[in-house]
């Protein structure tokens, strides 16, 4: 009888330990979750995946963006940002090849984070195959809304010449 009791207690302890350890080993940290947003951003950009790009953004008129190009001099807001992505994705896949460097995450409170990074972008002309390289600095502000990190503001600018 005593043996059974010891076995029962031992099993309970093992089960409790398993329940405690399992989610912890699988759960991503907030920093990792936030970095996943920019990994998906670059994936969507490089593969012309509008649905993925759209899913990364806050669906709100309060969404804002300063883009790096002359056509994006003024602040884009809400649906205009997604419309701009849609028009960029008309170009064939492979036109834009982005690679992100030195992403850094700063968590503000429970549900807002800032990501700063550099983006090296190669644009291949679909017709002539001529390539141009642009270097950009980027700030993304993301907010966790209904359990999902979403881009609420982006500021991209050309890397100044030294």
């Amino acid at each position, binding site marked *: 009888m005593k043996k059974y009791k010891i076995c029962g207690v031992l099993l309970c302890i093992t089960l409790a330990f398993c329940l405690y350890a399992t989610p912890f080993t699988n759960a991503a940290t907030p920093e990792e979750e936030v970095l996943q947003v920019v990994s998906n951003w670059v994936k969507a950009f490089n593969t012309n995946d509008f649905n993925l790009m759209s899913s990364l953004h806050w669906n709100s008129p309060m969404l804002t963006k*300063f883009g790096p190009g002359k056509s994006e*001099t003024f602040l884009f807001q809400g649906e205009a940002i997604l419309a701009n992505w849609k028009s960029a994705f008309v170009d064939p896949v492979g036109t834009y090849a982005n690679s992100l460097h030195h992403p850094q995450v700063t968590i503000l409170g429970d549900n807002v984070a*800032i990501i700063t990074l550099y983006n090296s972008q190669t644009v291949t002309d679909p017709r002539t195959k001529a390539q141009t390289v642009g270097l950009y600095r980027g700030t993304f*502000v993301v907010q966790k809304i209904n359990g999902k990190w979403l881009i*609420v503001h982006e500021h991209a600018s050309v890397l*100044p010449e030294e």
Partner: protein
Amino acid sequence: MRTRTFVGLLSWVCLVLCLYVAPAANAATAEEEVLQVEKNWMKSAETADYELFSSLYLHSPKISEFHPGDVFLSQGWELFEQNWKPTYESTQKGSVTMSMHNPQVTMLGDNVAVLTFYQIVTTVKDQTISQHRVTRVLQKIDGKWLIVHDHASYLPTE
């Protein structure tokens, strides 16, 4: 006795109404408080007031800035101080004028805000104009809005 009860009740109603209305009339909205930080930033630049400038930022290793003319990200208050203090000390009061255009505040919860605007800096002596697009991220810490990230860039030319 009935009149006294009625007057007493009326006084209570008036008092409650006054308490309800009075703070709303004086308190600034969160958006106004955030804009005030930027107004103070401009004032600090125009009056070369480094102490004021310093008081607007979170003094922490986590703050960061993309300055229009700098290639790399400045991180941490110590680096901010190294970059900005000499600039303020070498600038004469009244040598630049600043203006903010089309400011927009996006509140992300109660304690974080994103401010976007266009900034025009004019050098008084030779009337040189510099135009920037600015993003500031502010966090309310111990009841005070402080800048935690800046990204300022020249207007794109290409």
